[in-house]
């Protein structure tokens, strides 16, 4: 069988706390290219990995503003500029009656940007990813917690890193092919 290039080393843990502890130790030891996989969101894990802020809120704000101004303009333009009609003597720019649609479109655009922004930042859809080559990785979506140290980390050394993970009391350490 052809030998695959190494993507990284995957360590399996039984509890969220053990994983959190392992991530902290790995960061302390100087590893920077690492990721953790859990079956549910674990508080503080992203911070421990060095990921503190996400751009999702900014994207949602921009989406919401586009929806808000776009929604108002959508009604303002035909009623005041493009095709003004006198309906029941109401003023052309009867802005209070434009508010419901403006509101709905604000929510719509903000929600679309929240979902598609989150998916895009996460790089979804991802049809192939090396971590799925790790043995027992299907448990990451069930009841086990995984830590990955990537091979491209400058500090990575197949032997020493493996030793390091074993010392962290990992339940199992395995190699991940690219």
């Amino acid at each position, binding site marked *: 069988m052809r030998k695959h290039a190494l993507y990284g080393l995957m360590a399996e843990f039984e509890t969220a706390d053990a994983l959190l502890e392992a991530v902290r130790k790995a960061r302390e030891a100087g590893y920077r290219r690492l990721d953790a996989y859990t079956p549910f969101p*674990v508080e503080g894990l992203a911070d*421990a990995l060095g990921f503190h802020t996400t751009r999702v809120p900014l994207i*949602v704000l921009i989406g919401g503003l586009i929806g808000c101004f776009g929604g108002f303009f959508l009604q303002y333009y035909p009623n005041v500029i493009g095709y003004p009609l006198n309906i029941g003597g109401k003023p052309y720019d009867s802005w209070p009656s434009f508010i*419901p649609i403006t509101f709905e479109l604000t929510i719509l655009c903000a929600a679309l940007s929240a979902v598609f922004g*989150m998916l895009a930042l996460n790089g979804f859809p991802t049809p192939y990813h090396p971590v799925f080559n790790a043995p027992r990785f299907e448990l990451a*979506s069930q009841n086990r917690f995984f830590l990955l140290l990537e091979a491209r980390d400058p500090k990575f050394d197949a032997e020493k890193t493996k030793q390091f993970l074993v010392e962290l009391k990992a339940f199992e350490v395995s190699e991940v092919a690219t």
Partner: protein
Amino acid sequence: MGMEPIGPQNTPVVPPGVPEIAPGHTYGSVTDKISAIVLTRGTRKGWWVGFLIAFALLMVMHYAIAMVLFIGVGLYGINIPVGWGFAIVNFVWWIGIGHAGTLISAFLLLMRQKWRTSINRFAEAMTIFAVSCAGVFPLMHMGRPWLFYWLLPYPDTMGVWPQFRSPLVWDVFAVSTYATVSVLFWFVGLIPDLATLRDQAKKRIAQFVYGFLSLGWRGSAIHWRRYEMASLLLAGLATPLVISVHTVVSFDFTIAIIPGWHSTIFPPYFVAGAIYSGFAMVLTLAIPLRSFYKLEDFVTMRHLDNMAKMLLATGLIVAYGYMMETFMAFYSGNPFDRYMIMNRMFGPYAPWYWLLITCNIAIPMTLLWSSKIRRNVKALFCISLVVQLGMWLERFIIVVTSLHRDFVPSSWGMFYPTAIDFLLFFGTIGLFFTLFYLFIRYLPMISIFEMRELVHKTAEE
């Protein structure tokens, strides 16, 4: 089922005394119990019976729609003065039912209520299916439904735009936004669970379909961070949205000058009524589901009790709405308003009005105060059905009694529904349950990852 965990068993276990979940559950056990319904337990006989009944009703809906498309809205009981008949009644009823799902998933998330975890998924599904049913009615009330896109603002060659000052156009935007956001919210919630199903599935086709739908989710902590942020923001957006949707639906009535419609109490009273009927529907669905699929561990008495309390709270708001409506009719000194209320209570539709008061106020508002009844599954199921009937009658009374006798006695008339009216209504119930049966068979009806999170949190405490 995945691999059996090997090695020492030091996984977190739910301790006794947690009201939201039965003791003894672990990450693995909640995962397997929920996913097994989809993956390994197969299609059961009871499922087929229910599905086929629902499917037969769906065919009834298709028949009714085909008739309306072929012959026209003359098949409905509508005429002048009652130009809005069952179509709008059913539309408001279904939209209202949907609202509880969004409220459970969004508002209770913002309020950090643990008990939402095991009911939010199927409540959200209920929302989407109810909105689908609601959509049928305005469309089939249009006369020429194939021209529905005239409602949308697009630069057409006719040179005219939708009437943006009309609440009916607001409705188009509100309901389509609501449908879109509900589907997105539901799908986002499903992604991690679809990944679980992908990893547990044994059949090639299931692995492919769930793998495709889970978009390559791998549970990375960084992904979770963005995911949680997006979910939180969606919840924050969906909460005002759900209130705005029923407010806009109530604008369909209040912006008109018809006595009985032209009232400022409508928006809050419609929203409360929507949540009232929606929680009733959640109970109607949850009670048989938990016993049929043996989910009493997850949908506990605490859940049913809390939902019954929500029924009580929103029901009281609805009762206040009825009271104020009556009070204002007299206090305003407007003879048309006064006549409308007297006609509602003692006119030709009086039996339906009093049945509505019985179903919405008299029965639930007296019984639900008792914690014994709130914890009696059968009683709760019956009350939930009674409330839904009551809420349907409420919309019927609002629509029909307000329209059938307006300002000029020479234009008074009566409304009698026809067979097609009923067939279309019962048909959409078939559509709802067909979709629901497919949902419980092919998707996890309880959010698996949130249940694991619940296990984690309760085990920690």
